């Protein structure tokens, strides 16, 4: 694995898992909030909205 930049411990990481056997993406923000969807553009919008993650049912979702 590489060294150097990116090795900083504790820096916030967003994670998106494509759930096997489905078309579903599950996003996890570094704050612990999670979100499921089927559109990666919408998923990044949701993750990068931290700390103002749209709640389920919000307009525009």
């Amino acid at each position: 694995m590489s060294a150097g930049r990116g090795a900083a411990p504790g820096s916030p990481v967003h994670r998106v898992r494509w759930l096997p056997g489905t078309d579903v993406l599950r996003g996890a923000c570094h704050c612990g909030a999670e979100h499921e969807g089927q559109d990666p553009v919408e998923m990044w919008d949701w993750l990068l909205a931290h700390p103002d993650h749209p709640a389920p049912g919000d307009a525009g979702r």
Partner: protein
Amino acid sequence: MTAHSAFARNQWYVAAWSAEVGGDLLGRTVLGEPIALYRTGEGRAVALADRCVHRRFPLSRSRLDGDKVVCGYHGFTYDTTGTCVFVPGQKRVPRTARVGSFPVAEVDSLVWVWIGDRDAADPAAIPRAPHLAGEGWTTVSGMEPVDCDFGLLVDNLMDLSHETYLHGGHIGTPEVAETPITTEVDEEAGVVRVSRHMQDAECPPFYARSTGIEGRIRRRQDIEYFAPCLYLLHSRISPAGQDAPLFETEITYAITPSAPGRVYDFWAVSRNFAVGDPEVSGFLRDANHTVVMQDVDALNVLQRCLDTETEGYQELSINIDTGGLAARRILARLAAQ
């Protein structure tokens, strides 16, 4: 005509492989900046603005006199800092006679140049690829220019499902496109990681011939993209259902925007098996060059098509694009800084 992606200045970019920079001048253009590269007698790499201050003749088309560059048109002569130390026919060298120089760092057999505010250049920020020059590894490498927006090459490398279709019969098998990915983004560090782990996959010729594995394989692809320039694909192969023998291959790309609509595609394949086998090296060099040229041809065609699109054309993203979309956002943020 489509707009090209904005360049991120104040970043390190690969301008050359170390082996390319020697006692002859080498011309490269990075982020639209023409650069002349050479190596001093003591072995230090130098990067000067590639235009003589006099009549803009390219210094890369000139000659070296020791560690000095002598312009091939009228003989203006520059030292390693870009200061002009000689002009023809007169004793006084005008005070303004100098060309710019770029901070240079040689790391892991790559020559990195800093484009931007030179006071902000910190070589410690250069992402590492230690396998390129590491003991116990053998590397084959090359570089191909592509006539496309650098963002198209980033898109290409971040979504390896294209291996199944564009590189079928070489590195692509059906399982690559079929297998879900996990994407991680470290926003602060500007790093995107995309993992695709295939437990039971067809072995493509690229790995069958280099490893000697017959039959199906466990294949792990773990991408690390250090925006904007360095891309590593950690590839791990073992026979299906087995942890060993494990064949580790590090696929390195440096994605260096050259000019609007043009990008340098530096590539390397490093392996920790058959390290002394020239036949394997020759095979992997030819095989990866073939794969890279398939990308080059596809991206050249794609860019020409995009150039005919009207502004604001639509594209569609699906799950396979999760990593590429993350990379685009980071690149846009870096360009806006």
